[in-house]
């Protein structure tokens, strides 16, 4: 079957593809959040004293903070005492290899199209799979270890490389950074840790797959990527969740630390359950992602394809501290039905000759609201800073909204900053051109939207780009008219 046929076929299946869940015994903490829960999670993970203290500090900060309300999204107030903060699939012994992993779980990932085994054999992508809050399996670990690359779950890293974790955790996103980052710091259960030593070019894509399975749980994972001098890594992240009536909270933190001459590429395909037509259910996706180009000539590049979640609130940012460092942000955010997305980036230019580039493409359909919110800040000593931002919005249907809130704050006269934005709809002439050539309207829209997003999709690694294209078509399916 050709790729086109596949898209067509998927057009006809209307529902959220990953909406199933598997009954699996889970080890859960009681509902609610208190200091005891923080201690419980920490004890469960057999964490050292310093990490518990760090968590408690974050919890204390969190209790003093107020939930922010400046984003252009509306949702009922979250009851933080009604969430299970820790849920782990029950497994008696820690699996040593994939063969020992619960077959039911492997089945789950197979359904997601990321059969761990298959991936291992075919694509050469190293995968760390996070199920509910716990990392269940990491592939290719040994091969990576030969190069000195550490790629493992966060809890393993805490046990095996405490000095690294201690040094870098919270160095980019401090515990008191914002409400959700503080919450995550207090209760984060697992996540991925990645360390690339000096001068090493990671030979394969590293990938994490997140899935929320249990009901009433929140997922709070934490990813930390450290790239030493002159290293390179490309990192992928994917997420899905079952279809449920209630809203689930996902508050993750991603930190990237890039030393001199290092390059980190971080790609996300986010496909959490978006809720149904009436806005019932769906994931609240409140994520703090930030990278720091600490060394000279370092580079951090964010690419994201956001198609899921009921409410998205996410601003992957770059702090360009090193001289000649570069930050990039490529984003496609698609909203349909009752979805709301407030997403964008922050580029903070601190070092000299720093460069940043922002390309944001928003597509809104149905009754959704899609906002771009970005900040470009050039500090006083950031000589010759250069920024180019482009944010385009595409509107499909007359019940949706597209909004842009760019903040451009310049304090240096040698800076050159450009920002442009457009909002439009798919032209009738464009659709006419396609239908005239025998392409039906829905495929025509998929075609046009894909072309519109091409600039961003091109930044994704091969396997992801294909998946992202399919996702786009799927999310917009049924939005014609």
């Amino acid at each position, binding site marked *: 079957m050709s790729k086109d046929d596949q898209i067509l076929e998927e057009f006809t299946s209307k529902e959220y593809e990953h909406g199933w869940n598997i009954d699996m015994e889970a080890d859960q903490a009681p509902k609610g959040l208190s200091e005891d829960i923080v201690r419980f999670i920490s004890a469960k993970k057999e964490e050292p004293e310093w990490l518990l203290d760090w968590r408690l500090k974050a919890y204390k900060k969190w209790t003093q903070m107020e939930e922010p309300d400046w984003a252009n999204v509306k949702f009922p107030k979250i009851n933080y005492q009604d969430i299970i903060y820790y849920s782990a699939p029950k497994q008696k012994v820690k699996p040593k290899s994939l063969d020992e992993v619960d077959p039911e779980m492997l089945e789950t990932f197979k359904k997601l199209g990321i059969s761990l085994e298959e991936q291992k054999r075919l694509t050469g992508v190293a995968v760390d799979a996070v199920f509910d809050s716990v990392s269940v399996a990491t592939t290719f670990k040994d091969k990576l270890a030969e190069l000195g690359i550490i790629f493992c779950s966060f809890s393993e890293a805490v046990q095996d490389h405490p000095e690294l974790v201690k040094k870098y955790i919270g160095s980019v996103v401090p515990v008191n950074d914002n409400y959700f980052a503080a919450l995550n710091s207090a209760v984060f259960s697992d996540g991925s840790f990645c360390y690339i030593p000096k001068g090493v070019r990671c030979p394969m894509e590293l990938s994490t797959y997140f899935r929320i399975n249990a009901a009433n749980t929140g997922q709070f994972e934490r990813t930390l990527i450290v790239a030493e001098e002159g290293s390179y890594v490309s990192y992928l992240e994917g997420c899905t969740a079952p279809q449920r009536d209630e809203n689930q909270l996902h508050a993750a933190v991603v930190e990237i630390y890039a030393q001199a001459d290092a390059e980190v590429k971080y790609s996300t395909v986010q496909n959490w359950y978006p809720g149904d037509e009436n806005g019932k259910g769906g994931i609240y996706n409140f994520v703090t992602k930030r990278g720091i180009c600490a060394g000279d000539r370092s580079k951090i590049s964010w690419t994201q394809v956001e198609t899921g979640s009921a409410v998205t609130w996410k601003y992957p940012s770059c702090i360009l501290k090193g001289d000649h460092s570069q930050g990039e942000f490529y984003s496609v955010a698609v909203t349909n039905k009752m979805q709301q997305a407030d997403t964008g980036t922050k580029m903070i230019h601190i070092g000299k000759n720093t460069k940043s580039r922002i390309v944001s493409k928003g597509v809104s359909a149905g009754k959704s609201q899609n906002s771009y919110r970005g900040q470009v800040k050039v500090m006083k000593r950031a000589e010759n800073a250069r920024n180019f931002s482009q944010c385009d919005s595409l509107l499909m249907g007359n019940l949706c909204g597209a909004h842009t809130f*760019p903040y451009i704050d310049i304090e240096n006269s040698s800076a050159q900053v450009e920002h442009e934005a457009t909002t439009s709809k798919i032209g009738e002439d464009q659709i006419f051109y396609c239908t005239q050539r025998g392409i039906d309207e829905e495929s025509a829209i998929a075609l046009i939207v894909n072309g519109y997003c091409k600039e961003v999709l091109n930044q994704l690694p091969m396997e992801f780009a294909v998946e992202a294209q399919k996702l786009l078509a799927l999310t917009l399916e049924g939005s014609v008219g």
Partner: protein
Amino acid sequence: MSLQENLIKNFEAFEAQLNGHASQPEHTTRKNALEAFKTLGFPGPKNEEYKYTNLQKSLEKAFDFGKIGAEASITKEQASKYFIPKLDTHKIVFVNGKFDEKLSSIEGLEEQVVIKDLSTAFTEDSEKINKLFSKQADYKKDAFVALNTAYSLDGSFIHVPKNTVVKKPIALYFVNDASEGQSFNNPRNIFHIERNSEVTFLEDFNTEGAHESLTNIVSEIIVEENAAVEYYKLQNNKDTAYHVGTTQVHQERSSRFSAYTFTLNGAMIRNNMNIVVDGEGCESNMYGLYLINGNTHVDNHTEVDHIKPNCVSNELYKGILDDSSHGVFNGKVFVRQEAQKTNAFQSNKNILLSDTSVMNSKPQLEIWADDVKCSHGCTTGQLDEDGMFYLRARGLSVESARALMLYAFAVDVVSSIKLEPLKEFLQNLISERLQNDF
């Protein structure tokens, strides 16, 4: 005593000298506005709309609101030196916000066109005024509009009946007398332009004397069906002059409105230019230019609210900033669900000449309709090196090459002016400023 308390306290004194005015219906509006001001509070840096413009701090430092209200006296000579040369206009002069009949000259005005002191209009045209007063500018939203509404007595009421073209522009010269003490005033203008009429307004702000002055002005402009209005705002004030101005425009079907804001000097300036496009087939233009140096702070907030379909709005704001000046731009474009086929364009371009100058720009689009063409662009940078090289290669000195390049950047906005004498005046003023101060 806090700034807000001080301003509220003054209200009793103001109320006491209102005499007959206190018993008229508009006084209820004043009282409501004061209540709104109390609730809103003085906007601090936490307020998103005043994030980069900390008026509270600056006003607290510069003004003593407990002791304001020295007698003003401006002579004819003093006033006339501010008149724009060669520009034949109806001249209305306001001294500390008060309409001064002796200094004003209105000659050859078309029949039935009304130009009146607002306080007189409150008494004489009570019924008409109450239909218009405080109907556009919402005092519940903005603290300065609330303050102005609470203190509204002086200003002007201009009414242009239907099918009338007012040939001469109407120029409003606001002269603050700060020679004896600080000056604080809240002038209020109501411009009502009925259908098929045309008129041009000019608001010019100046200060006499060495003390600080604060003008908090609100102009409400109603542009009825198929009417055309040009509105110029000129700010080349002293370093001690603070200004907060709100222009609230209501456009009806097929009307045309163009606003031009030129800011050349002042202490701290905040301009709110809000247009509500409430009719099909309207055209709205907003042009702005700010050339600032020293410690001048200029904040331009613009807002176009497209409610009805088939309208066009166009916005161009340019700025040159030197020394420790601070520029702020916030342009909002709203396109409501019903407003299909809207074309909205917005552009903000800035040149920073020093490392101590700061520019905060926030062009903002909020769109709920799908069949629209909207775009915005924003750039901040410096002079093009190639351009400089080209001019230097042809024997121009660094200074004159720079002044020429800056002039070319700025004159873009000036060239859209339709009043020739004003255009000439501004062109000269700008090139002079660029030669001397930048």
